[in-house]
């Protein structure tokens, strides 16, 4: 009896996870093996087509570019967020008047709805009248077609995503820095390790577990980003900002090719799961140490 009551505590959550995570994952696998289009919604028929949808995506001339863009977007965003985030975390480690207040206000970009960030940056990056081009124009730089040139758009999208991710990186890395015992720095200072040497030989090795968690979590979050790209470029111009998640969205909800969209989703899941495994290992190490 007692055992039954105890189990009742987890039943709602268990059911929810099964219906809203388990079912979608299974459904994506079956959908990707079916011809699942807008017609399916009228006729109820979704013929099995084997791996035809996967053949479609792997032979699509958008597959390789979207893989490459996903990789560039993820690596570029993470590298920028992490480098700037770490620098700011180290900076805010000092105590100075207002340091806590300033650091917590830094979180704001991360808390805004992503679509708000996209809208704001679209106005800032506008080629003709955006403030960024006005600003660089002061130094005699020609207006840059940030979001309208296929050569620049991906870089612009990455820069915006770096801006969004910095606060998260600062917060987690700052937390990691706080956990490094002050005595280590005092002992290091006696041996002459200050400044860069202190960072290299004390901060970095002790921060490593937190660093791996931040990086892997960053990858898992970044790889599936949709809002920012849809809001800024919609995957354009000339498909220059297509990623795996944009492809999946557009195949399913713009072309109503749910089978093809699901196939893209499954590629995305496999990539995410790979990083999830790395995350779990990194996290376990972080907890152990």
């Amino acid at each position: 009896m007692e055992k039954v009551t105890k189990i009742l505590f987890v039943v709602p959550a268990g059911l929810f996870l099964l219906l809203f995570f388990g079912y979608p994952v299974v459904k994506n696998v079956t959908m990707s093996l079916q011809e699942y289009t807008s017609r399916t919604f009228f006729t109820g028929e979704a013929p099995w087509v084997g791996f035809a949808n996967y053949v479609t995506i792997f032979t699509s001339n958008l597959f390789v570019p979207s893989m490459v863009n996903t990789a560039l977007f993820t690596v570029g965003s993470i590298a920028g967020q992490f480098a700037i985030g770490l620098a700011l975390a180290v900076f805010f480690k000092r105590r100075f008047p207002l340091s806590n207040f300033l650091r917590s206000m830094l979180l704001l970009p991360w808390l805004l709805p992503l679509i708000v960030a996209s809208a704001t940056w679209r106005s800032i990056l506008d080629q003709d009248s955006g403030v960024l081009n006005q600003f660089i124009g002061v130094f005699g730089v020609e207006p840059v077609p940030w979001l309208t040139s296929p050569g620049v758009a991906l870089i612009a999208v990455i820069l915006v995503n770096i801006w969004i991710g910095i606060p998260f990186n600062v917060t987690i890395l700052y937390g990691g820095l706080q956990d490094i015992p002050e005595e280590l720095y005092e002992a290091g200072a006696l041996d002459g390790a200050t400044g860069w040497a202190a960072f290299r030989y004390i901060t970095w090795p002790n921060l490593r577990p937190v660093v791996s968690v931040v990086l892997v979590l960053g990858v898992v979050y970044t790889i599936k980003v949709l809002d920012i790209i849809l809001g800024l470029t919609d995957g354009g111009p000339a498909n220059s900002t297509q990623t795996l998640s944009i492809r999946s969205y557009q195949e399913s909800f713009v072309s109503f090719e749910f089978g093809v969209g699901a196939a893209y989703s499954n590629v995305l899941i496999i990539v995410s799961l790979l990083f999830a495994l790395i995350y779990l290992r990194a996290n376990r190490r972080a907890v152990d140490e």
Partner: protein
Amino acid sequence: MTSIISTPVDAPRPQPSLSERRGVRKVPSAVFTVLGIFFLAVMLFPIYWMVNASLQPSGNTLSGEWFPVNPSFAGYQTAIADQGANLLTSLIVSLGTVVFSLAVAAPAAYALAQFRFRWVGAALLAILISQMIPGIVIANALYTAYNDLGLLNSIPGLILADATHAIPFAILILRASMLSIPASIIEAARVDGAGFFRAFVSIVIPISRNGLITAGLFAFLFTWSDFLFALTLTTTDEVRPVTLGIYQYLGSQVGNWSAVMATAVLSSLPAIVLLVIAQRFIAAGAVGGAVK
């Protein structure tokens, strides 16, 4: 450079004492405050720009002023006329998701923290992995299921979908805050005749107040910010969260930037207000969600 070369090789290298070395690096702390304000200003400039642009007279161009010298509220009038209902929809969906997520997550978190189930480790692993499943995967499947169930364009449909952002996170945060509750308190209540459920409601819930606030805040912010489910699970304008309203502004009438930016400001208010009044809960959630 020259001083190093001219130092005799056999001379003992002068070792500055610790206090001396600190003395050299003593920069007035006000300098750091100024630098910190500068970094914050650079990071928050886009948000300033959003507010500034929202106060410019409506027009097709962005080439407004750097400061809202003559603020115009025309953008806000348009925004509220066009998006007022959508803001309300977002608010209802967000509050609904908070209630639903906490109701589902809190008992589960308690069970995972206090009951000695053999499969706790496996359950936690499943929850961690569920957080990593891309939203588009869920949207693909839910669209077809919702279509059959008549849940498209409905508030309950959005609440259930948005709870996928909130529930795994809430379980992890709440479990962490419930781990430290001494089992003896609950045992005492049970000896007095309270059932597990009664003890949970009257003892565990009040003790876990901070965790509940953090989890609730994030459930609200996740849902308020949600764009993917708004985009895929609504097809008409009956039920339309404001994030989708902004997206449609961006597509159709990017001519009227002040209205777009006014809507953006209105959609940012919850985040700004919550960051100011509930700072420590937000920081706790940001860290707790990552390393637990």
